[in-house]
């Protein structure tokens, strides 16, 4: 019996080392299950353990392998490959940041531009909707800002399905009405009502600012900024070779100043990428506090990564398990010839709820309905 406890505890720690979430309560369940089944029947023990330790579908193969190797004295220590610190550096950080800065500040007054083009808002909007971001310049970005904001406002129009007590109009709530009328001797003085409150989703953006994304980053960050004003709980992170929380930098002031502040705040702006390491850092440092079952996590990246795809897949799996949805926006998707075969992207696909293009306003518009789910 004691041996069994020790063996089970070792096995559970092996499972944890392989990335499965096994809590102490699960071990207790497993022990109770083992006391009830035929220990000599290996298949039965496997099913009982899987059931009590709550091994999910995606972990089933890894679990089977470990079970075959480790359960009741088979095999030795698995060789855990040491993680080589992979440092990738883009070409001269300062230079790239400067180039970005100059692009961001070489702008014109929106009013002046309005006069120049002389077009009314709606047709300009139509013009912009299909214009790919990588062919837009700084002037376009400024003109797009109100459009992005209007787009973001659509986010906060969905009503919750759950009825909440309200003072305003709504459906009659008999339970509460009746409680109240007891106080007035059975006379219905005022009806209590319930209505469906407006529900804003919580969003977390993880935005790739590496060189390969440069053309898109500005637009997607502007989009994130617009959403930030509508959905209050929104958090924005930038990553390239390091992860940086940029919500505060984005929040205030004019758009170009915000973007300029960003370029200063984010190390290695427009440099190389280590998606896996950065997302793993997010998963270990911020996942618990920022992401819950109401949060939609959006990764903006082209998936061109020189790091370890295993690391990326592991991080995404954790994020997906905790978030309501995990959406990956990839500007390259607009190209019909593109197949998500870049190593990072291929590893990511299994753990992403939705892979969507993000190359023009129309594609962001389609995204809105996904964010509100």
């Amino acid at each position, binding site marked *: 019996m004691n041996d069994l406890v020790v063996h089970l505890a070792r096995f559970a720690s092996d499972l944890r080392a392989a990335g499965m979430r096994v809590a102490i309560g699960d071990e207790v369940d497993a022990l109770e299950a083992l006391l009830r089944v035929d220990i000599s029947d290996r298949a039965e023990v496997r099913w009982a353990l899987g*059931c009590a330790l709550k091994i999910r579908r995606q972990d089933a193969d890894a679990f089977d392998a470990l079970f075959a190797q480790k359960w009741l004295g088979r095999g030795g220590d698995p060789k855990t490959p040491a993680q080589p610190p992979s440092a990738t550096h883009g070409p001269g950080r300062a230079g790239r940041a400067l180039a970005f800065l100059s692009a961001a500040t070489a702008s014109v007054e929106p009013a002046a531009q309005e006069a120049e083009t002389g077009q009314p808002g709606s047709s300009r909007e139509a013009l912009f909707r299909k214009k790919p971001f990588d062919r837009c310049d700084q002037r376009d970005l400024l003109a797009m800002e109100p459009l992005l904001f209007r787009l973001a406002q659509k986010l906060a129009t969905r009503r919750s399905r759950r009825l909440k007590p309200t003072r305003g109009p709504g459906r009659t709530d008999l339970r509460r009405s009746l409680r109240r009328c*007891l106080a007035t001797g059975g006379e219905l003085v005022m009806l209590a009502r319930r209505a469906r409150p407006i529900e804003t989703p919580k969003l977390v953006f993880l935005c790739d600012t590496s060189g390969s994304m440069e053309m898109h980053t500005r637009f997607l960050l502007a989009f994130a900024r617009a959403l930030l004003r509508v959905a209050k709980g929104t958090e924005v992170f930038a990553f390239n070779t390091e992860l940086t929380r940029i919500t505060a930098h984005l929040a205030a002031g004019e758009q170009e100043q915000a973007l300029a502040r960003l370029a200063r705040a984010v190390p290695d702006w427009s440099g190389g990428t280590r998606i896996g390491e950065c997302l793993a850092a997010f998963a270990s440092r911020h996942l618990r506090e920022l992401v819950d079952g109401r949060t939609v996590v959006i990764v903006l990246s082209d998936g061109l990564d020189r790091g370890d795809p295993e690391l990326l897949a592991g991080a995404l799996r954790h994020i997906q398990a905790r978030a309501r949805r995990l959406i990956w926006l990839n500007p390259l998707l607009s190209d019909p010839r593109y197949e998500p075969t870049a190593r990072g992207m291929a590893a990511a696909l299994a753990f992403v709820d939705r892979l969507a293009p993000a190359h023009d306003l129309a594609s962001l518009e389609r995204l809105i309905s996904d964010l509100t789910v």
Partner: protein
Amino acid sequence: MTPEIRQLLDAMGSEGYVADAAIATAVFLAEDLGKPLLVEGEAGVGKTEIGKVWARVRATELIRLQCYEGLDVATALYEWNYPRQMLRVRMAEQEGQTADEMEKTVFDRSYLLERPLLRALTRTQGPAVLLIDEIDRADEGFEAFLLELLSDFQVTIPELGPIRAQHVPHVVLTSNCTREIGDALRRRCLYLYIDHPSLDKEVRILRARVPGAGERLAHEIARFVQALRRQDLVRSPGVAESIDWAQALVRLHRDHLDLEAVEATLGCLVKDRRDLAALERDQLARLLEGAKAS
């Protein structure tokens, strides 16, 4: 194999549910440890069926709660019978009852409408099987409420006080994995993932559920469906679909598959417009050939 598990396996088999060791072990442990069983898997692999067959095997009542977004306590647990309460309040007024007396009369058990969860707790003749279907459709708020219910098997109705389960029900929760079930609820349950069945198991299921289907038809259907699941379809056919298909073919008096019959009845199996459009005649012919060859 533990004798109880073997018994359960046989009992489920004689009720027309072809279980395997994994399923029987999970049901046995859930029953023996008194824990809810969370069953996940693709649509149509027989998750709901586990609850139904469990109730039949134990010869008890099946109480089913279908989840949906916005499901609340009034629909899931209990509701007061307001019209009756109103009438009673009027009568009490005429009788000149005090407010206290009135409250006591009106909030009595006889004015309580039991919804599925409360019924599962208050059942007096032995434990019921409580099937909470498609929990992933309900929202997190409801999940949190379930968590409390499933750990203590006790609910508190403000006007009546706590109501404790007389017999702890056998609980099955099913999920189609459209949303990740919260960790806390998952930890409270035992867990079972049901995959699409193997060829051999699917043949046995078809033979058990569609008695009219001969050995040859069952084998060909199973092989065809298994091959179809390996195609890249938006909606893969589950066992429920292959049973439907077998029934349709039996109704059309087929004892084997041919291209004409497959084309005529494909709607039983493939239930997505895009999939139907993507499956071309020569691809069907190839699949059919594969199903007949071995």
